[in-house]
């Protein structure tokens, strides 16, 4: 921890987006699993994820960022899947 002489006066945070150093993935008790063959690339999982933990590259869902995913399950709940088959399912951590 910093000593008082090392602090920025006014407690101004100078590094934008520094929260990326704080991994919230350890909060998770359920883990989303992506089933690619059922994915229609609607990107609702990306849109509705409160933790910016769905990885999208060039407009395509590629998986989850487990460093930050808190395991809420919104992605799985909102996933329309393909022909009634979800592309995201939630599984207990440590299974």
């Amino acid at each position, binding site marked *: 921890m910093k000593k008082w002489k090392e602090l920025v006066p006014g407690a101004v*945070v*100078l590094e934008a987006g520094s929260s990326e150093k704080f991994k919230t993935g350890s909060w998770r008790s359920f883990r989303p699993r992506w089933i690619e063959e059922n994915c229609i690339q609607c990107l609702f999982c990306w849109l509705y994820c409160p933790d910016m933990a769905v990885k999208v590259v060039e407009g395509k869902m590629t998986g989850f960022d487990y460093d930050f995913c808190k395991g809420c399950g919104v992605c799985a709940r909102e996933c329309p899947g393909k022909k009634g088959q979800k592309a995201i399912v939630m599984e207990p951590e440590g299974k």
Partner: protein
Amino acid sequence: MGKIAAVTGNEAVANALRQANPDVCSLYPITPQTDIVQRFASYVSNGQVDTELINAESEHSSMSAAIGASAAGGRVVTATSSQGLALMWEMLHIASATNLPIIMPLVNRALSAPLNIHGDHSDGMGARDTGWIQLWSENAQEAYDNTVQAFRIGEHKDLRLPVMVCMDGFIISHSIERIEYLEDKQVKDFIGEFVNVNPLLDLEHPKSYGPLILTDLYMEFKRLQHEIMGRVKKVVLDVAEDFYKLSGRRYGLFESYRLEDAEIGMVVMNSAAGTSKDVVDAFRDKGIKAGLLKPRLFRPFPYTEIADALKHLKAVCVMDRADSYGGYGPMFMEISSALYQVTGNGSGVAKPKLINKIYGLGGRDYMPEQAEQVFTELDAIAKGAPVKLVKDYIGVRE
């Protein structure tokens, strides 16, 4: 030499704000300060300043907007009195702890209840622990000079602190006095361009203002705040020296009046100091060695310097135009603390005897007879009479 004018304290201070040409002024009217912001609004309406005005819907929002504007990056002023300052109280702490050099004339007025619009120091004293620099002014000239200096002090790179410039409501704010103005250019050059530190509006380098900080780091930030306040005295004296060169008017951390060889002394702040100085002269004429100390910088409080200036006295009365019900007056507490650290004064008396008088609350007139009464009592104490009552009230019907 600048222009000589006959103006009220409010007009003098408003003129200093005009000369500083702030980027933003947030305001909310309150007696007896209103006159300052309405004058300033007319400067804006008439294009005499570049300032953008924020007519806030309360003092709380006025200070909040000042904080937003100051963090954004630029010179910011506002002004208030009494209840307005009380309503701002929450935000005062945030302004100082965020190191935002907001300049705010405070036209001192009593606090409710009972509702009262007249001058006393309850408002400013209540803001003692908010982390603001406080400069107090005896008259319109000092209020003007302090306002001009406040920009240099608060905006100093080592400080970046908000400054409250205090003057007595009505007694000074509404009385017309002779005053010597600096030229606009002199003030502009003296204050200089506003220099930003971590401006929020630096879009290329986004910053976050106002984090949550809990048990593990909060205390370190408070320690840092104290450290920064510790640098204020030097800056105040340096700025005063430059101001002397510019104006010929000398300022220090406090004013000593006939104190050097005095045996009894009064500590009194703001307008009552003027009245008291006349009485000091009258007692000197009678052969009684009276003197006076008028604090100017109340926060941070110059404990050692004031103790040095008072320690040779036999008896001192600390005058408080504010009360702490069930406690001593706020100024008395500071002077007692300062003198307690004195280990000896060379004249055989360990420390001056101290008494505390509460006076002038709610604008109650402070008359020369009251000062005479105080000096007479001090004279007796100095000659061996016991202190009957440490804290007492003067000018009140018993």
